[in-house]
């Protein structure tokens, strides 16, 4: 809570237009948002709490769960689409039994669809905690997931 207060104090009180930068900065340091943060920001910026929740749920960037130990991002750029990222997504959802924006029960994996990762030549592409894995196939997905599961 202390860092939240110190982040807040960098912004003028009651200026609603700073809501998004404030949330971004808080999330950068806490990695996700929760009710306590929402209430603190609401009180400081003088915005109804529900508005903050409403704004935060509108944008992809804000999260209300901590995210998995391994955060898997799947490229949904056109390059990857043409080369079958759909299969990759489906395979991941089937294997992990979660959808995008969700986190497995054990907290080990979370899934997210992201725009072009910039390696379209090697499509389809996924990224696990920032590590790019290229030329994915459903079979490779299985392997990779098994590998990461083992590291538990």
């Amino acid at each position, binding site marked *: 809570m202390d860092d939240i207060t110190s982040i807040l104090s960098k912004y003028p009180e009651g200026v609603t*237009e700073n809501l998004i*930068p404030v949330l971004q900065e808080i999330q950068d340091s806490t990695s996700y948002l929760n009710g306590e943060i929402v209430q603190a920001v609401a009180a400081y910026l003088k915005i109804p709490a529900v508005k903050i929740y409403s704004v935060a749920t*509108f944008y992809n960037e804000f999260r209300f769960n901590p995210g998995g130990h391994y955060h898997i991002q799947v490229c949904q750029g*056109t*390059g990857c689409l043409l080369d079958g990222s759909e299969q990759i997504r489906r395979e991941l959802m*089937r294997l992990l039994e979660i959808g995008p924006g969700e986190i497995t029960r054990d907290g080990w994996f979370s899934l997210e669809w992201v*725009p*072009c990762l910039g390696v379209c030549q090697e499509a389809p592409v996924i990224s696990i905690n920032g590590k790019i894995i290229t030329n994915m196939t459903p079979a490779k997905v299985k392997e990779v997931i098994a590998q990461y599961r083992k590291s538990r």
Partner: protein
Amino acid sequence: MIQEMTNRINPRELQEILLLEKPELNQEQQAMIRFLRRERISRPAVFLDVTSPSVIYGIDQFKVAVKEWGENNALDVDVVETGSLGLISAEPVIGIQIPGRARLYYGQITPLKLPSILDAVVRQVVPEENLIGQMLMASQQPWEGIPFWDQHPFFKGQTRYLMNLCGVIDPCSASEYIAWGGYQAFAKSLRYYTSQELLKLIEESNLRGRSGSGFLAATKWLKVANTPSDKRYVLCNADESDPGGYMHRILMESNPHLIIEGIMLAAYITGSGQAIIYTRSRYPMAVKRLQKALQEARSAGLLGSDILKSGFSLDIQLKRGPGAYVCGEETAILSSLEGKRGMPQNRPPYPATQGLFDKPTLVHNVETLAQVPLIIRNGPEWYKKTGTAESSGTKLFSLSGRISRLGVVEVPFGTPLKTLVNDFGGGVRNGQPLKALLLGGPSGKFVTATQIDTPIDFEHFEEEDLVMGSGSLVVLDEGCCPINLMKNLMDFNHQESCGKCIPCRDGTKRVLSILKSVTTRPANQEKFDALERFRGITRIEELAEVMKSTSLCGLGKTAANPVISGMKLFREEMEEHVFDRICRAGVCRNLRSFRIDPVNCTGCNICMIKCPENAIIGSPHKVHIIMEDICSGCGKCYEVCKFNAIRVL
């Protein structure tokens, strides 16, 4: 001597120089400029293209590799981070320059290959493997018999006005940008011209918005400048989220100062004291570079109050868009900047009269603003020489999909599409025939091979009913299923719809569900999906028409574009999907079905065990059977059968 100069390079000093109309440079100053342009170096330098794609290809390892090589050879080597030349498929790209000789660019090299290349170059030998070409540089001796990089098919024929410094200079350094003539347009404008005069230039230049609509920029500028208000804003729309589009990212990462100068000029001309760059959180490198570049411009005295003692004050803020495609729409950005949900607003009032915090706001695309310094620097007459009668200047395109060379190209308006694909892009990958192009991303339209001669300009695009979009060009070959792509683009629009208005929120959902029913084989064909398939197809055009004419913002209005154009162009394939239930490209895997050849089947049981849908029945050593209505077409059985008994239908 040069080393001494490095420490003395002072942006302020340069600023003085650039301020002079016809700068009379003394020797030392000329040397300084040459040093900054790296037309004079005292030791070998390696230029690393550090941009987001090259980072993925591991450009960071090269820093270490170069350093090691330097240590091994007891040589001091400068390592300079630059932006990208635009040729993404050649990443990692590296420039090598030794004193007195022209810079050489290499692509697709590995840290292992690097030392041998460096060894050769310092010995004045140029290995030709992986070579892109040499760069023509003043007072640097060109390599004999070595092609120049602009003869490389990817670059030959491009008109690189915006891109000319990309991959050449250190992107964030204001000094380097200035040494290449940057910020002069701005400085001169402040010194010698009134905003009215400059506005005239913009009007005469025929500058048109690069985000797709081709809207005449001057119309907006006049509105903003002439709406009475105590405050005005310039908003640079850098929220590029088209899947398939990455030209803004490359430009922001490779030459942020150009964009910043464009914003400065726009602000001065429209009388705005505040400007905002709205870019994406997901572009961390672009954010970092823009931030650093802004910092440098600030310390060079080009931002702040009373800039260059002209009385004009300007502040540029960088905001990170927290991730929503619809926040590329101009009124949605305004909502987002005001701390609200990024939902588009009704127009009128237009942002030009009532924008951010209800003040007149000039909203432009990154690329549009980057054109402004060119126009001011060279004058509208010069500018209009490039391009066509009604579309002046150049346009950036990002090439992706099934194309041999991927990257960002800059072409004058009027260039035929064919040139982009065949010449710059090197044609379809693996020499396959071209099936179609998709221009304009998720709100774009397909272009078939027959239309590929169309020149790229607003006139012809309107005539041919094509969408230019912000410049993403996706190449499809016969291995791509357009129906499946249509479905995926609709899925994107559906996910990215803000949900405010019914035609878009529910329309995209409905069209998506129709397309899904067309591209998948439902477990039970009698049910909902089959009904949806036939009923839906008959209504898809009507839904699209209503979405187009009634949606609140551009997203909903154009969401059905790919579907409508695709249904026209790929009627046959659509019918195959709908009636014959096959996908000739084999992409809609769900449409495949499998059958077991009783002659070959040994009853080994393995397919039954592996089938994820439990669609196979049979007892050991007897012929197995696939229940077609349960089979999802995954192909697992086909993969595992060792007896070649599974047939694809």
